[in-house]
């Protein structure tokens, strides 16, 4: 252990310089640009994931006590899907895109060519340490870049597993993992990169962007924010009964366990997105709920009922809930709960186990808007419910916070309300009648706006995030409009006006001297 600490401590600016130098040499040599290299690396990444599923799940259990199934759904399977999609679509992605040309530049043709940016840096987060490290790397490889990955030191087991696996499976002259904390990251940030992709919090993001500014390096910042859920009181459950019965008839004697009553879909989808996503430690987890005063008690009841179904009577014992990542974060969450004006508002849960870093799913009703818990991202298993008179007032609550969240959710059957939600709420992504599922959808760009970050990825958007779109114009030698050149005359001016207007008729008129 001591030796390891020593080994890590020597990663300074010089080592960073060496790493970048080696990767830049590989990039300049053109190694990463070839389609075959990209395919081989993506296949290797897929193979690496497939062959090491138990080890990956074990590392995630060490770092976060993450339930195996959660590790599988949100990390392993998502990454495999990313690799498969890139392998399938890459040929299409790298094709130059034809662009139209106008009369002004006739005769000509134009295209937009995607080219790799060069040597890129990916700095990832601890909450989904496997996925958030490698998913951007998939985009970087598909686009033909050399990559340095800096996994989060707060999930050390996954970080060292990543370092080992990447070195074993991928081309180490072009893709490297650098483990470390603040000093190693600072050393890396001093270097010139062609893109920095950062997942994490706003405070560090500012440091990353300021460091990038020194070298004019573009950045993608994937941050978080307080993602709200609006629950409309009008969710009519009775209408759905018929469907539930059909569901039951079809499946009844086969798998009783999947038939648990479909009552309260909204509640369950919120629970799945909140506590079922790393116990709330996810950037797109619901942060708080807004609902009407009338509906709040009913919603609370159904939460209590469903939570017990999911996690049992004593959730601290449940194997299906992740723990809090470390004691710092445990203390941070405890502070949010212990604030005077908040501690009395707990209506469900609140149990904590400091030794095992566990916090039970906790619901707070009617917390004041000026409390700590309502002014910073919770990133944990606490869920405040804010009450409004009319559900339409929810939009004001969200918009008056002055910050734009990464995601916003709405549960309703009313078309009008959906429309208003989509038009007035600004967030990275919006989901109507579900939570967090947009993350799995590669045809949708995933990224924030305002305080929740900038830039987007997933699917083709990942490829684009790591590509430069080079404009290419091909011209012939014929057809040189003399008006482009000095000496300038009044007639040339008229013809120019016609040419830039792009109207054939006025060009002819000007040529004939009629205008």
């Amino acid at each position, binding site marked *: 252990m001591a030796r390891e600490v020593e080994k890590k401590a020597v990663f300074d600016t010089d080592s960073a310089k060496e790493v970048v130098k080696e990767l830049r040499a590989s990039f300049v040599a053109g190694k990463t640009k070839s389609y075959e290299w990209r395919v081989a690396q993506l296949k290797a990444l897929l193979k690496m994931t497939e062959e090491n599923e138990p080890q990956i799940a074990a590392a995630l259990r060490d770092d976060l006590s993450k339930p195996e199934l959660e590790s599988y759904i949100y990390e392993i399977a998502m990454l495999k899907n990313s690799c498969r999609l890139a392998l399938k679509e890459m040929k299409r992605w790298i094709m130059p895109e034809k662009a139209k040309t106008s009369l002004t530049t006739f005769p000509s043709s134009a295209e937009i060519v995607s080219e790799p940016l060069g040597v890129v840096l990916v700095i990832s987060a601890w909450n989904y340490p496997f996925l958030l490290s490698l998913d951007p790397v998939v985009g970087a490889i598909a686009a033909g870049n050399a990559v340095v990955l800096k996994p989060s030191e707060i999930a050390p087991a996954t970080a060292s597993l990543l370092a080992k696996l990447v070195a074993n499976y991928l081309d180490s002259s072009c893709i490297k993992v650098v483990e470390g904390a603040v000093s190693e990251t600072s050393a890396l940030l001093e270097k010139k990169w062609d893109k920095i992709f950062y997942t994490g919090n706003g405070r560090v993001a500012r440091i990353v962007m300021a460091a990038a500014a020194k070298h*004019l390096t573009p950045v993608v910042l994937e941050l978080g924010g307080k993602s709200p859920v609006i629950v409309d009181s009008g969710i009519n459950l009775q209408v759905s009964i018929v469907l539930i019965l059909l569901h039951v008839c079809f499946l009844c004697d086969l798998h009783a366990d999947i038939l648990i009553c479909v009552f309260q879909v909204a509640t369950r989808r919120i629970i799945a997105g909140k506590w079922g996503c790393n116990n709330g430690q996810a950037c797109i987890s619901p942060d708080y709920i807004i609902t009407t005063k009338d509906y709040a008690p009913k919603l609370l009841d159904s939460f209590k009922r469903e939570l017990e179904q999911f996690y049992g009577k004593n959730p601290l014992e449940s194997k299906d809930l992740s723990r809090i990542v470390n004691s710092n974060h445990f203390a941070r969450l405890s502070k949010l709960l212990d604030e005077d004006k908040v501690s009395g508002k707990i209506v469900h849960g609140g149990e904590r186990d400091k030794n095992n870093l566990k916090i039970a799913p906790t619901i707070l009703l009617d917390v004041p808007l000026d409390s700590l818990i309502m002014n910073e991202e919770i990133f944990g298993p606490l869920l405040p419910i804010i009450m409004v008179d009319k559900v339409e007032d929810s939009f004001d609550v969200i918009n008056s916070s002055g910050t734009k969240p990464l995601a916003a959710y709405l549960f309703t059957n009313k078309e009008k309300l959906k429309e208003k939600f989509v038009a007035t709420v600004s967030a990275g992504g919006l989901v109507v009648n579900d939570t967090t599922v947009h993350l799995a959808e590669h045809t949708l760009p995933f990224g924030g706006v305002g305080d929740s970050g900038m830039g987007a990825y997933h699917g083709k958007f990942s490829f684009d995030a790591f590509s430069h779109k080079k404009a290419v114009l091909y011209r012939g030698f014929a057809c040189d409009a003399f008006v482009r050149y000095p000496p300038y005359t009044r007639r040339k001016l008229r013809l120019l006006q016609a040419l830039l207007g792009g109207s054939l008729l006025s060009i002819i008129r000007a040529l004939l001297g009629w205008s």
Partner: protein
Amino acid sequence: MEGSIAGLRETFKSGRTRSVAWRKNQLKAVIDLINENEQTIYKVLHQDLGKDPAESYRDEMGVILKSANYALSCLDKWVAPKKAELPLVFFPAKGEVLPEPVGVVLIFSSWNFPITLALDPLIGAISAGNAVVLKPSELAPACSSFFIETIPLYLDNKAVKVIGGGADVGERLLELKWDKIFFTGSPQVGRLVMTAAARHLTPVTLELGGKCPAVVDAFSSHSKTKVIAKRIAGGKWGLCSGQACIAVDYLLVEEKFASTLIELLKKNIKRFFGGNLGDLKCVSRIVNKHHFERIYHLLKDPHVASSIVHGGSVDEERLVIEPTILLDPPLDSEIMTEEIFGPLLPIITLKNIEESIDFINSRPKPLVIYAFTEDGTFKKRILSETSSGTVTFNDVMVQFVCDSLPFGGAGQSGFGRYHGKYSFDTFSHEKAVLHRAFFPELEPRYPPWNDFKLRFIKLAYRFDYFGLILLLLGLKKP
């Protein structure tokens, strides 16, 4: 200043700038502004830079009218949400990507094309439905005053503001929180802008410059060579006297062709601009004393001065520098390490034109690479082995007026892009929207977890619908 920006934020919140009708109105107002002030614009451009009306129309007013008309004709298409395809597992669901305005944006424009570089981004910002502050460059004072006086007469005062002033005003503006900053200018100031933007996590577009090379290879026929020389001469000296970020900075040519090219360039200079310094016509002047000194200083280096093969004289009174050609100035001299941004054109000779690829790659990525060649293989090599914002084959400058091509840099020449739809995108946030129904509901999404659910999810991720049915019917063995 702070107050007026708070006012803009109020306007944006009120939703006024979001309406498509408002956007179209404002775009029409931009067109009116240009059309109704044609003579004034000629005058202010002449005052600031000595631009001829035809040059002004070609590079500034014409460009703006074209951009504004294009945006007007495409706006309905641009604002429409784009459907996103979703797999069956999500059924029934609907995905779309909805462009929304980012909010209140700040545009810093540059002095060399004071009208275009201010209004072209403005068109993008308005099309996307934002409230805008425009800070025109103080180095083109007549144009800046023109904007301050005229924009309020045409555009919606509550949503579009012009703030004049120098670096101090720029700094104060940068302290405020913006939803996007669009900057055209030098890399040095670009760094300051991005550092300031980092404090508020504001995304930036940086339109910078760099040394844009022109590779000259095609000498198959004399008539083509003549066209090449004409295009280079027109594009270098006829465009604000080389004070353009996309101007040709230097030429790369094979030794044996250098003299032919120089002769043709000289002929074109004479034809376009007239004889000696005193009679120069149609040449923009250098913007100010400071830049005049800077460019003159590049020429004064004795090794550089001895490489002058044409021109080289200057008129300090009128701030005019003669179109100047240099043959093989030392590669470590400032003229070959700094962006020239003036009417000096160094010609670098190579044994073999293929060497130009290494030559370009050993320097920072330029905004544009121009290449005059008919050799298909060489074109491919240039495309795949070099990197730049744009590559233009067999012409100069014209890429700037192609609405269908993104305009922007790579590496040191900046990032982000605009023109046409790209301007709209630059000032929009692409919001992902997913609509789901309540039923059917996939139970295996929820805890408590068990082996059945894990198997279900594995199949669902692979979109193996047949396998899913077998599993549900209990026919699939683990």
